């Protein structure tokens, strides 16, 4: 079993998640958008080794497969940013504990940052869909 995620780990300030167009069943003509915004580059100061990159992982309890096409695990996810980041969709587990204490079992998008996040404010937009009014946890 994967380890329990310790929620008490520090949070990065001035880096948060926002929802734009938060209605359900919006379809292809009015897509929902999740937006990550970092407005304080000084929060990204941990020292990287040459073989290291900062990564943001956005876990989705309801999964990331509600876009127009069914993505295969480890395929590229369509996102955009003012940084030259890369985005990879990774499928989660179907059988293990999927409660909010175990987000590592959820579908996720790994966003590998280019390094300029420590000197530049940035935003990342992630399109998605909400097919129901059920709670969506990220």
């Amino acid at each position, binding site marked *: 079993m994967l380890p329990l995620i310790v929620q008490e780990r520090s949070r990065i300030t001035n880096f948060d998640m926002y929802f*734009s167009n938060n209605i359900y069943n919006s379809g292809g003509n*009015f*897509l929902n958008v999740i*937006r990550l915004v970092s407005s304080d580059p000084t929060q990204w100061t941990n020292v990287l080794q040459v073989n290291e990159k900062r990564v943001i*992982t956005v876990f989705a309890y309801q999964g990331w497969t509600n876009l127009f096409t069914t993505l295969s695990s480890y395929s590229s996810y369509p996102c955009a940013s003012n940084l030259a980041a890369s985005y990879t969709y990774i499928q989660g587990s179907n059988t293990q504990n999927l409660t909010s204490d175990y987000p590592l079992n959820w579908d996720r998008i790994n966003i590998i940052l280019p390094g300029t996040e420590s000197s530049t404010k*940035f935003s990342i937009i992630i*399109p998605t869909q909400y097919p*129901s009014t059920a709670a*969506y946890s990220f």
Partner: protein
Amino acid sequence: MVGILDTNNGAIRYLHAGARPIMGASTYLTPANILVYSKPKQTAMQLNIAGLAGSYKSNVNFTISPSASFNGNSYSSAVIVMSSWQFYVSSSSLSPTSTASVDPQFANVANVEQTPLTIQVSSTSFLTYIPFTTTGVYGSNFNIVLDSLKFPYSLDLPYYSVSLIDGTGAIDGYNEFINQNQNIFYTGVLQDLAFSCNDNSLGVINTYCTIGFSSFQDIEIGAVLVVNLYGLFVSTNLCSMQYSNGTSIPIASCLPNVNQNILTITLANTEQLPFNTQYSIVINGMSIDATQISNYITFQVMDPTNAYAIEQKTRILLTSVAQDFPIEITQFSFEKTNPVVPSSLFVNFTLPRPLNADEAFALVLNKDFITPNNIPSKINIRLMMADGVTLVPTTWVLKSINSQIIFENLQTVLTASAYSLELYGITTPSTVAQDMISIIYLRIYDNTYAKSNIASSTSTFPALTSKVNSLITLQTYFNTEGLEQELLFTVINQFVPITQYTVWVINLPIYYSQPIWNDDYLIYCTISGTPLPCTRSVHTPYQIVVSSSPLLVSVGSSTTYTITVFGITCPRAAYLNGNSMFATESIFLGMY
């Protein structure tokens, strides 16, 4: 969660976690139970665009209509546009008018995280996200001014929707455009178009033409250029494009349609090609229809899907009266003029023009000539300049199926001047015909004869004279594979005595080695036991030349003599003993 990825092994070490997804947290969403269409439709909310399809336009107003209660004070507030074409491209930006705006506020130098972003979410769907922040309630219409927006490749306005999102992430209002605003875009004209052919003669079968053009718009990555031909035909897959300074622009493909009147050129450029710049395209395989009253092209710069013309123009070709000079064959001569003997053929000819890039120089042989000469290894062909001394290096292939000998890589070599061909090792036909051998320029793409000799430009073939058949018998010794063999010919001359000037030629079958002897020191011949000089033929494969007899032999049945050739490598047994592959092969002994 935020962590550090070890690029060596892909392991992620998470250092920070976001808010736990519980009710009220920024990571927890319960979508609103409403429809988009129950929100106010703001009919004034639109991109104000019209103009040249596929062009880029600056200072475009995007009218936004907030409701009276609109509050945009968070990173959730934005204009989201779903469109079937990508109007906000990498070169697009907020104009200075908008970046300097205070209320509502847009991205400026200090707020790069607020710049608009675009994602392609499906093959025909693009999401553009334009964030903005007001300091609070903002209830009046305003414009977002955008630069270098990309207009669609269509004359009608394609689908797009606009939704204005407030600070809570909820839709404040929307607008949608479905199948309306016909013909608000139009196709532009090219800035400049020129068209000429290397040979502008009416009726010319194969020439190359040059299109020079410049455009008012940048040419897209992977754009398609279409050449519509009227009174002209094209048959090629060979095109080239360059800037006026000669720098080449890559082309992915160049294909004519079935009717040969539309050529589609797909570019392989990896960057946009700038507007107001001279380009030239060279198209091979063009022919000019002499029956048409005018000959012209319509040239179109299309979008990368080849669906819409962005710019186009028509240009007439100034043609001239046909002066289609044929290839001229000035002389034929055989080395031996007897029928059905190993011989050589020499052809002198004059070319009327250089060979084009899409053409091959070729010989066409008639059936009587190709039938005894369909084994390439027996033939040695030399192409000479008119001086008869300077060799033009070339390689050739024999295509039995269409009776052609095709020379390769002569496109930049042959010019409008005189040459001679030397074909060694051929077997003369039983009778000669005037069409025994023709010289052509072959358009490679469709095997069209672009140029050829005609009856009036072809010299007369020399007549053949019958040969004398003498009584010759052959004995062979040391007939073991790989051993040095001895061939013993016993001959009775009927009419001509043997003198020091007599020359014998011996042609061996192709199952012998082409150079005949493995080593030069093995070359050894005798006449009736007395040594005499013998060599390989200089140019003819499988041929031995024996000469300078030290003996004088008179004619008649009482004066038998022998010619013996030593040291020839004995061929493999598998090639002999009735092998059908070599049923027509034989040893030939001739003398003159």
